[in-house]
């Protein structure tokens, strides 16, 4: 379980830092239910993102890499 609730903005920051940004993607838009693939992030990008979240917030990295959308990821890592 993380030290505190991880927000969509936390995730946006970690995605940007760890996996960069696709030019045509508006990461600040309504992305909660957009699949990571459509945001330009492949499985390695998701692994890198989960790994960075793990360093910062003590989350379960193995569970996080299964998420398909930001909402799924946040639900998984914030779950008790």
């Amino acid at each position: 379980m993380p030290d505190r609730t991880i927000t969509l903005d936390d995730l946006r920051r970690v995605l940007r830092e760890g996996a960069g940004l696709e030019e045509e993607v508006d990461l600040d838009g309504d992305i909660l239910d957009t699949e990571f693939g459509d945001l330009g992030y492949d499985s390695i990008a998701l692994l890198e993102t989960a790994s960075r979240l793990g360093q910062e917030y003590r989350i379960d990295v193995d569970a996080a890499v299964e998420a398909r959308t930001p909402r799924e990821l946040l639900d998984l890592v914030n779950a008790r």
Partner: protein
Amino acid sequence: MTRSVVVTGVGVVAPTGLGTEEYWAATRAGRDGIGQAGRFDAAGYPARLAGEVTGFDAAEHLPGRLLPQTDHMTRLALTAADWALADAGVRPGERDPYAMGVVTASSAGGFEFGQHQLRNLWSKGPDHVSAYQSFAWFYAVNTGQISIRNGTKGPSGVLVTEQAGGLDALGQARRRLRRDARLMLSGGVDGSLCPWGWVAHLAGGRISTRDDPATAYLPFDARAAGHVPAEGGAILVLEDRDAARERGARHVYGEIAGYAATFDPRPGSGREPALRSAIETALRDADLAPGDIDVVFADAAATPDLDRAEADAINAVFGPGGVPVTAPKTATGRLLAGGGSLDVATALLALRDGVIPPTPKVTPAPEYRLDLVTGRARTAALRTALVLARGTGGFNSALVLRSHPDDNDEE
């Protein structure tokens, strides 16, 4: 009939210029690109000079998503590939992906990226190693990234023969075009200017420890004392000649008319090094006689024994002073696997413009009996060029370029 393979696009990233024309203008003028190493603090090392690509801002050329997953030299390679395709007027998205491939050369992979991640591993633990380490430091990373970016799914690979690789990659790309591929992106962009790469260079024992860019890298000169490591290279677009003409290719720079690779005998065997054999085999492959070659681009190792071996091989084939020889790389340093490819790009531009670029800074030692082009560029009618490259460990490669005046009628 064997297919003729031509170069239709050139992308250059070099210490003396970003982009083909900037590089070529500097090369013709003999402008120098060697200076204090700046990508890391080299002050505490025995060698401190490098040929660095300056003024390159990766974010200007590549999407942000690629930056966290790429070493510096991969960013340079991706940019060079973009420029080569643009120069060829080819949009890969409009072509059969399985008919396009990528063959690059590499000497070390993404060492700067790798060093950073190994430091994380050592100082912070395995959780702190980037997921992108899984490929970013591999030899094959440039081939992989170029193929992903451009959607090519045809025959691909990487050649690892140190400095000879820049020619070997082009030889392999030509082979694939003669079989099943329609277009190949090929060449080398290399560099490992970081402490980890630097100590590997130093351990090789051929690095100049001089501090003056004017005297640090002087092949075929009585003052020769090793070379200056550098980064950069060239990516070329290769196509079947008839197919290139059919689609109305904007340029046909020249044909890769001959190629050969050989391996040296065991050190201390007393047998002749195999560079001469590489030259002779490449000439046979091109169906040309020594007298048909208009200029030689030398490997130019800048240690007395290797300079002697190269001069002996050239003189054995062409006779002493029998052909103009040049080594523009004295202005850039040696680009590892990028060196041979950059020399091929330079030779193609020399054929295009009828100009042999000079070997800056060098005063030729008469004992080598070479007609070395020094000082100023030399104007000459050029139809053919021979490019030589040797890789540490015994690799020798020779590649023959030939221009066909009727290929560029419409210009």
